[in-house]
C-alpha cells in the first residue's frame, strides 16, 4: 500500500510541474516582442492583412483565453499546429525527440566512461602527481563552454583529420530501412552495423562536445564519493583478506560510491538534454534543440510551447527513472 501511495503522490507532483511549466512558458512567449504575424508580413501588406492573419492564427484573443483553448486541445492530444511548418506540433516534436535522446544517451555513455575512468585512476593513484593532474583536467574541462569544445572538435577531427562527419545525423545518400526514428538503436537491432558505424561517425563529435563537461562533473562527484568510501572499515578489512588495491576499489568501494553519484548524475543529465540546443545548432544535428532555435527565431509559438513541454516531460521521466534505479540498487530501500 505504501508503494502505491508514494507513486500516486509522485504522479501528482509531476502533473503540477508540467502544468506549472506550461503556464509559465505560455505567458512568457506571448509577452516576447515580435509576433509570428510580424514575421509573415510581406513588403506590401496592409493593416487589415495584419488583422486577418492574426485572427487566422487565433492570436487576437486574450492570453488566458488562448491558454484555455490550447489546454483543451492538449487534453485531446492536439498540441496545435506549428505556424512555420504547418504540421501538427505533437507529431513534429515526437519525430525529432529520438534524435535528441540518442545524442544525449550517447553523450552520457561517453561521459560516464571518461568520468568513471578518471575517478577510478584518481583514486587508485591518490596522493600522487597524477591525481593532481586529473583534478586540474577536470577543472579545465568545466572551464570551457561546450560550444567551444564543439568548435575545437570540428577544426580538429572534421577538417584537419577528417575522421568524423561534421553535420547531420546520417549520410543522406544511404537509404534507410528504419521504421522508428531511433536510428542508432534500430540499426543495432537490425544488425546493420554499416549504418550503425555511419551514424556513430556523425554523432560522435556532438556527443563528445556534450560529454566533456559532463565527464568532468561525473569524475569529480564519483572521485569524491570514492574517497569517502575508501575510509570505511569494510575496505580496510578487504585489504587484510589479501585483496589487491584494484580489486578493493572496483568490488568494495565502487558499488557503494555509485549510489550517491547516481542522483547527481541524473540531474546533470537533464541539464545535458537542455544543453543540446547549442550543440545541435553547431553540428546541424536534426534534434529537438535545433528545431527549438528556429522556433524561437521565427516566433513559432505553438512549436516552442510543444518543445518546452516535451523537455519538461523528459526531465520528470529521467528523475523518476533515477529514483527507481536508486531504490533498486540500494539494498536498504529494496526491502522497504
Amino acid at each position, binding site marked *: 500500500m505504501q508503494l502505491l501511495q508514494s507513486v500516486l503522490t509522485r504522479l501528482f507532483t509531476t502533473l503540477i510541474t508540467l502544468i506549472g511549466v506550461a503556464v509559465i512558458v505560455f505567458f512568457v512567449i506571448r509577452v*516576447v*516582442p*515580435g*509576433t*509570428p504575424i*510580424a*514575421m*509573415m*508580413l*510581406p*513588403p*506590401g*501588406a*496592409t*493593416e487589415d*492583412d*495584419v488583422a*486577418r*492573419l492574426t485572427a*487566422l492564427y487565433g492570436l487576437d484573443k486574450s492570453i488566458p483565453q488562448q491558454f484555455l483553448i490550447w489546454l483543451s486541445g492538449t487534453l485531446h492530444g492536439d498540441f496545435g499546429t506549428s*505556424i*512555420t*511548418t*504547418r*504540421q501538427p506540433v505533437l507529431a*513534429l516534436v515526437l*519525430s*525529432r525527440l529520438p534524435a535528441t535522446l540518442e545524442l544525449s544517451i550517447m553523450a552520457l555513455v561517453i561521459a560516464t566512461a571518461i568520468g568513471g575512468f578518471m575517478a577510478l585512476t584518481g583514486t587508485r593513484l591518490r596522493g600522487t602527481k597524477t591525481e593532481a593532474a586529473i583534478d586540474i583536467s577536470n577543472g579545465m574541462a568545466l572551464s*570551457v563552454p561546450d560550444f*567551444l569544445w564543439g*568548435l*575545437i*572538435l*570540428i*577544426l*580538429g577531427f*572534421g*577538417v*584537419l*583529420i*577528417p575522421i568524423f*562527419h*561534421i*553535420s*547531420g*545525423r546520417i549520410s*543522406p*545518400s544511404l537509404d534507410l530501412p528504419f521504421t522508428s526514428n531511433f536510428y542508432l538503436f534500430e540499426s543495432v537491432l537490425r544488425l546493420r552495423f554499416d549504418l550503425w558505424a555511419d551514424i556513430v561517425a556523425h554523432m560522435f563529435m556532438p556527443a563528445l562536445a556534450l560529454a566533456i563537461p559532463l565527464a568532468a562533473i561525473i569524475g569529480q562527484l564519483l572521485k569524491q564519493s570514492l574517497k569517502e568510501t575508501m575510509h570505511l572499515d569494510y575496505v580496510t578489512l578487504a585489504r587484510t583478506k589479501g585483496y589487491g588495491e584494484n580489486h578493493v576499489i572496483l568490488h568494495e568501494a565502487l558499488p557503494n560510491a555509485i549510489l550517491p553519484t547516481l542522483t547527481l548524475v541524473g540531474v546533470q543529465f537533464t541539464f545535458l538534454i537542455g544543453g543540446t540546443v547549442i550543440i545541435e*545548432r*553547431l*553540428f*546541424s544535428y*536534426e534534434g529537438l534543440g*535545433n*528545431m527549438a532555435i*528556429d522556433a524561437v*527565431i*521565427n*516566433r513559432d509559438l505553438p512549436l516552442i510551447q510543444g518543445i518546452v513541454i516535451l523537455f519538461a516531460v523528459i526531465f520528470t521521466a529521467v528523475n523518476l527513472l533515477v529514483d527507481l534505479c536508486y531504490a533498486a540498487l540500494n539494498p536498504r530501500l529494496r526491502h522497504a
Partner: protein
Amino acid sequence: MKLNRRALLQLSAAGVSLAAFGLPARAQAIDELVIAYNVNLPAWDPTTGPSAVNPTIQGLYQAVFDQYILQQPDLKPAPGLLTEWGWNDDRTQVWMTVREGVTWHDGSPFTAEDVAWSLARVADPATGSPIQFVWGTLQNHRVEGNKVIADVKQFDPTIFKWMYFLTGYVLPKAYFEKVGAEGFEAAPIGTGPYMVEKFERNAFVRLKANANYWGGKPDFDTVTIKFVTDAAARVAEIESGNAHVTLEIPYEEYDRLKATLTGTAAPVSDIGMIFLNDIEVMTDPNVRKAAAYAIDKQTIIDRLLSGYGVPIDTLETPQYDAYDAGIKVGYNPEKAVELLAASGYSVDNPVKFKIQTTKGFKPKDYEMVQAIVGLWRKVGIEAEIEVYEIAKHYELRAADQLAPAAFYNWGNSVGDPTTSTGFAMYGPSPHSVWDGQDVIDMINPLWGEPDEAKRIDGWKKVDAHIAENALVIPLLQYVQPILSAPGVVVTPHASGALLPQLMKRA
C-alpha cells in the same frame, strides 16, 4: 600574417600536436552533388505561411516548382510555364498562353487548369496567402484552350513581375485536391527540374533529376542539399570535402579557400540600409544629411567585407529597372561637420540618438553598425547601439516604433522600384518608417501608372528626392560568396537563389 594550417594546429586549444598535411578537397568525379545550404526548409507549400515570404529559401522552391514566368540569372524574365502574357488594350483583362507538353513529377499532364486554379488560390484570403493583396487584383480566372484569361479588378503594373517573385509558383490542382495540404507537405510534386526523393526536416533533402523537364534535364542526377545553419560548420563541410558547394560563408574564409576551390562572388538583389524614423533628432535634415555624408561606405566594404560589396546611394542597385547612376551621396566628413554645426552640434556637443541592429542575421551586420558608429563619433554624432532579434524588428516596424535609426536588409529579386523604394518609403505601408507626406504625394500616381517609361522616370525622381533629403541611408548591395569543388561549375543567380539546375559538371 597569413595563418597557414600548421600555425593554427599549434594553437588549437585542444593542444593536439599533429603533423599538418595539405588536405585537397576531393577532386575526383562527383556522381552525387552535395550542397551545404545555410537555412532550414520549414515547409514545402511555397504560397502560404512565413516561408512563402522568406527570400533565403526561394532557391529550394525554384528547384522543385516552376514559376509562372522564368527569371533568368540576370533578373530578366523569360518564358516559363507561360510562353506569352500581357494585358488587353484597355487593361481590363490579362491573358496568358500556357506551355504544352509539360508533365508533373507524378507523370500527370500540366494544363492551363493548373495555372487558373493556382492564381485563384493565392487570390483567396481564406488560404492565408501573404501576397493576397497583389493576386486579389485579378478575379474570375477562366481557361480557354491553352490560354488563361482573368479580369483586372484593379490595375497593377507589376502583376506579371510577381509571377516570378514571392508565391509566384504553379501547384498541381488535381494532385493537391486529392492529397490535401498535409499530403502535399508530405510528398510535394511540381514541374521543376528536380523531384523530391526524400526530405528529413532540419537535416537534408535529396533531389532526383526530372528526366523530362521542359527546360532540359539538369547535369547532376542526384543532388543532396544538407541544411547546415552554422557558417563555421559550412566552411568545415566544404574544406573537408563532405560538401561540393556552399554559400553565405564569412568573406575572410571565402578568400582563404578561393585558392584551392573555385569561388564566385556576384552582387545579388539584397541591400543593406539604415531606416530613418521621422522622430526626435531625425526630423532635422542637417542631422540626417550629416549622418549620410559621414559614412565611408567603400572603406567599410574593403576593410570589413574584404571588398565584397557594392556601395549604393539609393535603394536601387545597378541591376534594378529604376537605377539612376547620376544620384550620388559621397563620403564627405567635413560637410557632415558643417551641417551639424549649422544645427548647433559638434564633436564636443554631439547629437545623440539610438541605432538598432540585428546581430549575426546578415554577414557582419553588427560590426558594420559599430564601424558606422565609430565614423559618426568622429564628426559629432553619438549613436547608442541596441541589438534586437529580426522578429522584434518586424514588429517595431509594423507598429512604426523603430528607433531614430535602424539597420536592415531589403531583398527585391524582381528589381522593380515599387517593391524596393515603394514599399520601403511609402508612408501608409506598414513596412515603411518614413511618413513624409512629400514622398507619399510623389509616389501615389506611380502605383497605377500604365506608361512604363513614365513610371520608371517618376520613381527615379522619388529616389533623387529621397537621396537629396537623406530620408533613408542606403549602404551597400550585398555580394553572395559561393564556393564549389573543382568538379562543378556554378552559375550564380542575381536573386541570391542557389539553383542546383544551374550547376554543370566541370
